[in-house]
């Protein structure tokens, strides 16, 4: 691999509009942040610049760990992703399955106007994708085994757009599978019922809805710029500030705002928390010892140890329960024998 390829390998996400950290989206985010600080927060131009490019945040120990994880995870992804099941495999299996169900009529809706088909597909794909993100994210918080992994992301004490890469490789695997599953479900279903007019509305090759999500500051979710929306809108879309609430260590913010783009899921399932405008929230984990958020080795290995610990506790519990039961049976048996003798 020569130098150019190496740069390409590590930094390709910045020139790929399908990625959140695409340079165009980052620039838009800076503009948005500046507008917010200047006109809503009434800050001076200098003040706004200082806040956006705050050295203490961009070069904190936590942020530096983000950058390292970004680079190292790239290598993990390179080796792991070819091992995962492909969308084509899932899509094909589902497509074949749909053929085998006689009550499903292929091309049932094929006469629908093409623009309607494309609109429906674009929206469905986005909504299904977003919903599965909500579900999996919720699991990451509620299931101890997954929380052990997801903690890595939440250990960030300062947030920058690169924090989106502050994840354990195992979480990357889970999220890739989620995506494969979501798209693998929607694509064949649409093709089966709507025929080959199925397509996606895109801008720069990206689902138009995903494009708007990113172009309107998805990068600011992981930042200290607490852009909030109107209350009614925060019931529909997650604002950057709402996601910052999700990262807060305050008790009132515990397990809130799991949503990615849409707030509807949090609203429906009772985990919605609107933004508060009470000044800076504190990010991180209250259970984490200070300074650990910057240690790469711990970030990779701690989740593994914790998973091992959880499995061990679980195994011990199972074994001891089984032994207890055996003991009980033995005692009952002995008691019966005694009774028979007497």
């Amino acid at each position, binding site marked *: 691999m020569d130098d150019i390829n190496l740069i390409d390998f590590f930094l390709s996400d910045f020139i790929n509009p399908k990625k959140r950290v695409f340079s165009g989206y980052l620039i838009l985010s800076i503009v948005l942040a500046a507008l917010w600080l200047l006109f809503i927060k009434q800050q001076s131009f200098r003040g706004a610049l200082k806040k956006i490019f705050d050295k203490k945040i961009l070069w904190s120990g936590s942020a530096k760990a983000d950058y390292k994880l970004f680079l190292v995870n790239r290598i993990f992804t390179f080796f792991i992703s070819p091992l995962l099941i492909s969308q084509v495999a899932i899509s094909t299996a589902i497509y074949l399955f749909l*053929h085998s169900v006689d009550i499903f009529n292929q*091309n049932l809706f094929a006469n629908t106007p093409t623009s309607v088909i494309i609109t429906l597909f674009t929206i469905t794909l986005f909504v299904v994708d977003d919903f599965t993100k909500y579900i999996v994210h919720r699991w990451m918080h509620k299931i101890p085994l997954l929380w052990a992994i997801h903690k890595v992301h939440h250990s960030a004490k300062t947030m920058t757009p690169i924090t989106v890469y502050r994840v354990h490789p195992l979480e990357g695997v889970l999220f890739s599978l989620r995506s494969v599953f979501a798209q693998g479900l929607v694509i064949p279903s649409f093709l089966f019922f709507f025929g080959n007019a199925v397509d996606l509305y895109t801008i720069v090759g990206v689902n138009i809805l995903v494009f708007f999500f990113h172009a309107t500051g998805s990068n600011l979710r992981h930042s200290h710029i607490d852009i909030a929306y109107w209350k009614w809108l925060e019931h529909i879309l997650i604002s950057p500030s709402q996601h910052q609430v999700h990262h807060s260590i305050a008790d009132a913010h515990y397990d809130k705002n799991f949503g990615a783009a849409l707030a509807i899921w949090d609203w429906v399932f009772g985990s919605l928390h609107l933004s508060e405008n009470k000044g800076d929230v504190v990010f991180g984990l209250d259970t984490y010892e200070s300074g650990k958020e910057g240690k790469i080795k711990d970030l990779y290995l701690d989740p593994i140890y914790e998973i091992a610990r959880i499995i061990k506790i679980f195994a011990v519990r199972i074994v001891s329960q089984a032994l207890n039961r055996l003991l009980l049976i033995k005692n009952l048996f002995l008691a019966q024998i005694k009774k028979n003798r007497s």
Partner: protein
Amino acid sequence: MIMKRLKATTAIVAIALSGTMALSDGYGPFPVTLQGYSGDKTNTVSYSGQIARHVLEQSLKKLAGKGNGGGNAVDLEAQMLSYFNGSDEDLPIIAPKSKDGFKIKQTSLHQISKGKNISGKFYDGAMPAWPGNMSGKDAAYNMIAMAAKSNKGFDADTGYDWAQLISKYTMGAMAYNQAVDNYLDEKLSAEKKPNNKPYKDGVHYTGKEHSWDEAFGYWGAAAHQHGFNPNKVYEIAKMKNQGAADKNGDGMVDLKSEYVFGPCYYAAAFDRSGTKSTNYTNTLFDAFLDGRKLITAAAGDALSDSERSQLKGYAATIEENWEKVLAEAVFKYAGSVYKDINKMKDLSGDDLNKAYRAYAKHWGELKGFAMAMQSGKSNLGATATKMNELMGFGPVTLNNSYVTGMDSNGNFVMDRKRSWSDYQLHMLKIQQMMVDQFSVKARVNDGLNDLQALTDKLDSASSAETD
């Protein structure tokens, strides 16, 4: 800038060189190498018997569509059999025939070769893909008899298109079988047809030279098509480009060396369509050519073990790619059948009958090629069993019934029904099977294509971001 120019120059020189090579590097003529030969012959290439057989096959296909619903059955069957079994009389060439802009030199069989037939070179092992537990050859006789009784080669009740079935099946059971299971197999051994002896008494070519030429003849390529773009090869077979075919410029296409027949035609057809990622036409031609050069270079000595193993390497390339071409055909027509069913679902009346006829034609090609695949050298085992099961003995017809077997009187039994979508699923599975088992790459009419295209467009990695 200089580099660019250099590259351009190199490219031009390379193109020019390959151009001249393509012109001078055809399959033959090759000189006499037979030691002790004192005659005046100068070219040892000879495969006119195979050309005659290709012509018999094409003529038979034409005849299969001449039935008038039973009235001419006896005569037609006799006529078809004269082409299948051969005849002492000189038979007229029914196809391919001259047309405007494409003049063919020969008009009767004896102008190509005498005493040739299809039946003597036809696969005669078990053929479980056809109802009635028949041998390979009996299945062909059965098709011929049925074709003679049919109306224009089509039986709407069973959905059989006899011309397609007979012609595609013969392309495998005769050409493919003879090449890969005979000439490129037994006859490459040290003992059989050695290179230091004539192929048979009195001929000027050696045992190995002629064995190899026979296989080349069955492949059906034009002798001068080396390096041709597949479009050109395709146009020759489709009789659309006399200029490309007429190598010696005599204003006529000589079937004996200048025309492209069935097997090679299909290779070119796949190279130029679908994913356009294959090169079957030239891969096969080059393997034939390289093998023939190796034999010629032995100068009439018996081939050494290492020469024979190299030759077997070329034979393996030929066999493997030929099989793939047949698998591509199965893939393509399974896709056609799939699409045809989608069309038929929306139609009724005359439009439906028309679409059904096209569906039956495609199914005939599908079945014919599937049977062709099963008449080669390698035993396809479970793959064949599964493929036959998915395809069935006959297509799902308009009332959803399909041929399930043959009774003791030789009538087709149609005692089961299957839904259209169920049958479509079978077609997709057949396509999947061709990909998994034979790694087909051209993938014409890919039923899963839209799926793949959409998936590629979305690129799953984009959504791996978490929050």
